[in-house]
C-alpha cells in the first residue's frame, strides 16, 4: 500500500514538474546542507544497591557521586551515564519550486526535501530515516476576488501553522471582507505524512485508530485601515466519522490607535472547554528611541483527542511580560530589557508539605553596538527561573562584515541549566565561527562550526554533553522572476502608523 501511495505521489510530482517545465516561467530555489554532530548520548545504567552511598535520608548515589533512583526492595539502583562518543553526518536537500504562466493566475508551487544521515549516531538526527518529504505541492489559481489551491498546502492561522492534503478557496466579496474555506486529509506535523498508526507507532503506544480529515474556515474583517480581525473554526474528523480528534476555534485581532497598537489572540478547545491561548499585547511607538511592549498571556496546553492527555486536566498559567527596546538616534547602539512573571493555576493535586514551584519569572537584557561600518558586537543575558527547570544564559557575538556580500562572526556562549526534577546542574561553555558569503546574486555559501564543553556541577560523572557541531550550506536559485509568494490572503488597505 505504501509503495502504491509513493508511486502515485511520484507520478503526480512528475506531472506537475512537466507542467512547470511547460510554464512561462519558473523559479527553483535550493538549499543543500551538510551538518556534522559529534556527541555522547546517554544510557541508563544500574548499580547494586549495596554499592551505593547514602547522600541524605532519601537519596543514594554511586561511588562517583552520581545520584541514583532506588526503589525500596530492589537490588539495583539506576542512573544516567554517557555512552561512547558517537557522530553523524546529515545531508539535506531542499527544493522550492514555483512555476507560472500556464494561463493567467495559474501557478504551481512545491517544497520538497530529501535527507539522509550517516554515522553511528544517525538515529539521533530528526527523521533521519525519512528520506523524502513533500512539504507542499499545490496548484493555485489566483484571480481577484478568488483564490483557490489544490494539493498539499499550508494553513497559517491562530490555531497554528500546519499542512494538509486537500483544497482551499478564498474569496473577497468586499474589499473589507475575506472568507477562506479549507479541507482535506490531516498530516502529522513535521512528518508530512498522513496521521495514522503506522507513522506514530514507533513513538506512541496508543496511536490513533484511524486517519482523519480536517475542515475549517476563516473570516477576516477589516473595518478600517487601522484594524483587522480574523475568526477561525476547525474540526478534525476521524475518517470513519465516528469521532472528532479536535474541535477548535480562534480569534485574532490587531488595532492601531494613535501611538499604540493593540493585538490579541484567543484559541478555544471546544472538547475540553478550555481557552488554550488568551494573548493581548500593547506595542507603543518609540519615544526618544524607547519602544515599550507589554503583553498578557494565559496559556493551557492543547492535546488532540486521540490521546488521553486532555483528560488529565492540564492547567495553565497567567503571564505578564514587558519589553523595552532602545536605540540611539544614529542606531549605532541598541539595548533591550525584558521581564516576565507567570503564575500557574491551582492543580488540586500534591501534598501541602511537598509543594513544587507554582510561579516563574524571567529577565533578559540584550545589547548591540555597531562599532564601525564593518564591526558590530551583540550580546545577551537571560535568566529564567521556572517550574520544571531554570537556566541562565549569556551569549556574545562579534561580527565582521566588510560588505553586504558576506560576513564572519565569532560567537561565544555560556549557560547553566538547573533541573528541578533531577539532581544536577549542567554548565556549558561554547565558542565558534559562523560566516556567509554571497558568491553571486543567486548563490550563497553559509557555514558555521561550534564547540561546546559541558560539566556537571558537583557530579563529575554526570552525563557528558560535550559536542562538536559544524554545518555548511549552499543556497542557490534558478530563474529570476519573483512572484513565488502566491496569492494574497488579506483584505483591505493597511494604513501607515
Amino acid at each position, binding site marked *: 500500500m505504501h509503495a502504491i501511495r509513493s508511486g502515485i505521489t511520484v507520478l503526480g510530482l512528475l506531472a506537475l514538474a512537466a507542467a512547470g517545465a511547460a510554464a512561462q516561467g519558473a523559479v527553483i530555489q535550493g538549499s543543500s546542507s551538510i551538518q556534522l554532530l559529534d556527541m555522547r548520548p546517554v544510557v541508563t545504567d544500574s548499580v547494586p544497591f549495596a554499592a551505593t552511598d547514602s547522600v541524605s535520608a532519601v537519596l543514594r548515589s554511586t561511588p562517583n557521586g552520581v545520584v541514583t533512583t532506588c526503589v525500596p526492595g530492589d537490588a539495583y539502583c539506576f542512573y544516567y551515564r554517557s555512552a561512547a562518543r558517537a557522530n553523524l553526518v546529515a545531508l539535506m536537500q531542499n527544493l522550492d519550486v514555483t512555476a507560472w504562466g500556464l494561463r493567467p493566475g495559474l501557478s504551481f508551487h512545491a517544497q520538497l526535501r530529501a535527507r539522509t544521515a550517516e554515522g553511528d549516531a544517525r538515529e539521533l538526527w530528526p527523521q533521519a530515516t525519512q528520506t523524502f518529504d513533500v512539504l*507542499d505541492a499545490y496548484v493555485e489559481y489566483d484571480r481577484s476576488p478568488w483564490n483557490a489551491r489544490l494539493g498539499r498546502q499550508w494553513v497559517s492561522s491562530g490555531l497554528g501553522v500546519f499542512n494538509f492534503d486537500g483544497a482551499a478557496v478564498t474569496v473577497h466579496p468586499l474589499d473589507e471582507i475575506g472568507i477562506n474555506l479549507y479541507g482535506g486529509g490531516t498530516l502529522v506535523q513535521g512528518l508530512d505524512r498522513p496521521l495514522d498508526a503506522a507513522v506514530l507507532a514507533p513513538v506512541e503506544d496508543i496511536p490513533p485508530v484511524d486517519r482523519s480529515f480536517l475542515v475549517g474556515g476563516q473570516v477576516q474583517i477589516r473595518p478600517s485601515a487601522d484594524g483587522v480581525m480574523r475568526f477561525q473554526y476547525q474540526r478534525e474528523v476521524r475518517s470513519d466519522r465516528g*469521532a472528532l480528534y479536535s474541535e477548535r476555534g480562534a480569534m485574532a485581532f490587531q488595532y492601531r490607535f494613535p501611538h499604540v497598537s493593540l493585538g490579541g489572540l484567543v484559541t478555544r478547545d471546544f472538547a475540553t472547554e478550555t481557552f488554550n491561548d488568551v494573548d493581548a*499585547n500593547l506595542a507603543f511607538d518609540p519615544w526618544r528611541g524607547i519602544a515599550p511592549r507589554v503583553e498578557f498571556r494565559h496559556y493551557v496546553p492543547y492535546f488532540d483527542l486521540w490521546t*488521553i*492527555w486532555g483528560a488529565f486536566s492540564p492547567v495553565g498559567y497567567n503571564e505578564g511580560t514587558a519589553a523595552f527596546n532602545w536605540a540611539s538616534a544614529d542606531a549605532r547602539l541598541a539595548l533591550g530589557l525584558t521581564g516576565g512573571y507567570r503564575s500557574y493555576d491551582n492543580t488540586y493535586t500534591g501534598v501541602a508539605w*511537598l509543594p513544587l514551584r507554582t510561579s516563574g519569572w524571567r529577565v533578559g537584557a540584550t545589547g548591540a553596538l555597531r562599532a564601525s561600518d564593518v564591526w558590530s558586537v551583540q550580546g545577551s543575558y537571560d535568566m529564567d527561573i521556572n517550574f520544571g527547570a531554570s537556566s541562565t544564559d549569556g551569549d556574545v557575538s562579534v561580527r565582521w562584515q566588510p560588505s553586504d556580500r558576506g560576513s564572519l562572526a565569532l*560567537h561565544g556562549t555560556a549557560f547553566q541549566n538547573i533541573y528541578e526534577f533531577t539532581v544536577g546542574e549542567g554548565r556549558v561553555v561554547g565558542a565558534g565561527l559562523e560566516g556567509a558569503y554571497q558568491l553571486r546574486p543567486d548563490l550563497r555559501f553559509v557555514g558555521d562550526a561550534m564547540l561546546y564543553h559541558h560539566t556537571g556541577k558537583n557530579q563529575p560523572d554526570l552525563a557528558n554533553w560535550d559536542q562538536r557541531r559544524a554545518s555548511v550550506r549552499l543556497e542557490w536559485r534558478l530563474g529570476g522572476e519573483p*512572484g513565488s509568494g502566491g496569492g494574497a490572503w488579506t483584505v483591505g488597505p493597511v494604513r501607515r502608523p
Partner: protein
Amino acid sequence: MNFRRRFLVVPAVLLAAATLATQQPRRGTFPHARHAKLFPTCAGCHAGILTGDSAEMFPSPDVCAQCHNGTDVRRVAWSGPVRAATNLRFSHAEHAATSATADGAAVECASCHGQQAGRDTAWMHIAGAQPEACIACHQHRASEHLAAGAVCSTCHEPLARATALSVAAIAAFPKPASHGDPDWLARHAPKNDAQIAQCAICHARESCERCHVNADQVPAIQKLASDARVADLARERAPAYFTPASHRDAGWAYGHGHDARAGAQSCAVCHTQSSCLTCHIGSLGREVIARLPVARAGRPSGVQLVDPARASPSAGGSAMRPFDASAVTLLAAAGDTVRLKLVHMHPAGFATNHKAAAASGQFDCQGCHQPRDCTACHDGVSTRGNFHPGDFMSRHATAAYAQEQNCSTCHRVETFCRSCHQKSGIATTGGVRGPAHTGQPLWLLQHGQAARQGLTSCTACHQQRDCLRCHSDLGLHVNPHGPNFNPESMGSKDKQMCLVCHVTDPLKK
C-alpha cells in the same frame, strides 16, 4: 581730468585681467611688486586686455630681454601665460567702457586686483580678483559668493557653454554652503526655470542622472543640457542617497505601501523596481511597483536594499538567542547619504511574537515571504538553524517547561521531542525505575502537580500507558481528572478516548 580718469581705468582693468589669471599658477610667477618702479602704467605691458587683442595681453619675452639681457640683469625665460579657461561672463573692455566709481571716476585695475581686495593700493601690489569685488559693485542680493541666494548667472555662463573648461576644472568647482546642509538633498529640486538656470551654471543633465533613476521622466532634469565632461565625472562617482524624514518614522516600513500608492513618482526618484522586489516577492503591490523604473545598465542603481540574511546567516548568529535584527538595524543618521541600508520591516522580537499579527492577517505576509519562510521553522525541522540559540539541545529544558514559545507551534511532541528523547537515552518507559526525577525522591507524591503544570513536558518522554498503569479503571483506579473536567463534553467528541481508560486494557498492546 578726463585724461586722468582714463589713465586710472586702464591700469585698473589691466590689473584686473592680470589678477584673474592668477587662478593659474603661472600667473603668479611674475613678481609685479619687484618691478614696481619700472612700469608706470598697466597698459604698457597689458594693452591687449582692453582691446581684446590676445597678442598684446601680456608682454613678449623681448620686452623682458631689454633689461634681462645677461649683462645688466640676468636672463630670464618668462613668457606670458596662456589665458585660463573660465566660465566667467566677464569682459575687461566692456567693464573699462562702462564701469565707474560712485563719483563717476573709472574703475582702476587695482580696485579688483590690488591685494587685500583693493585696500593695499601700493603700485603693482596685485592679486587675483575675488568674486566679492564683483558683488561689491553689482547690485546683487547675495551677501557673498556662493551664498544661497546668489544669482550665479550674473557672472557665470551655464556649464554647457563653458566648453573650454576641463573636466578637472569642473570637478574643482567650489561647493556652495547650502549644498552641505543635511536637508539639502531633500529640497534641492528646482521649482521654476530660474532655479533650473541656476543649477545649469555648475550642473548638466548627467549630474542628476547620477542618482535619479527616473531622470528621463523629470522635466526639470531634461531641461538641463547634456555634457560629456560631466558624464565622465558622474561615472567616477557613486550615487548618493539620503533617508527622507518620513522613512525614519517608527513603523514606516509597515505602511509604506499607503504612501507608495498615493505617490509612486516620489519613490521613483531613488528607487527602481529592484528596491521593492528585494522584499516584495508576492503579488502585494505589484501594480505600484510596476510604475517604478526598471533597473538597467547605464542607469543609476537606485537605493540598494539588502536582505540582511544574505550577508549574515542569522540576525544574532546561530549561537545567539533569537535576537531580533531590528534591534541592530543600521539606520542612517539624519542627513546621511547612504549607499547601503539594512531594512528591517518588523519590530524587535517579532520572530517570537508574530503569532497574533500573522493570525489576524494584519499584513499580507505572502507579499514579502515565501511559504518556505514559514515552513523553515514551522515544519519542525529547521533548515536554517538560526531560531534557537546555539546548543539548544542542551538548554531547551527551561523553554520546554515554560512553553514561552509554545513548542507545539513547530514541533509535534510525539514525533519530535519523544522520538529524540528515546533515541538519545533520556526517555525511559515502563515503570518507576527510570533514573529521572532523582531530585524528588518522593516524586510519587509530587508528580500530580508537576503533570498538571507541565503535561507537555511529561509527554515528551512518557507514553500514554506509563500513566495508565495507575490512572485507569483497569489499573490502580487513580482518577486523573481535575475538578473542572467535563466528561460529557469530551465524550461527545470522541468516546473511544474514554474507553481507553475505562473499558479496554490499557496495558495490553
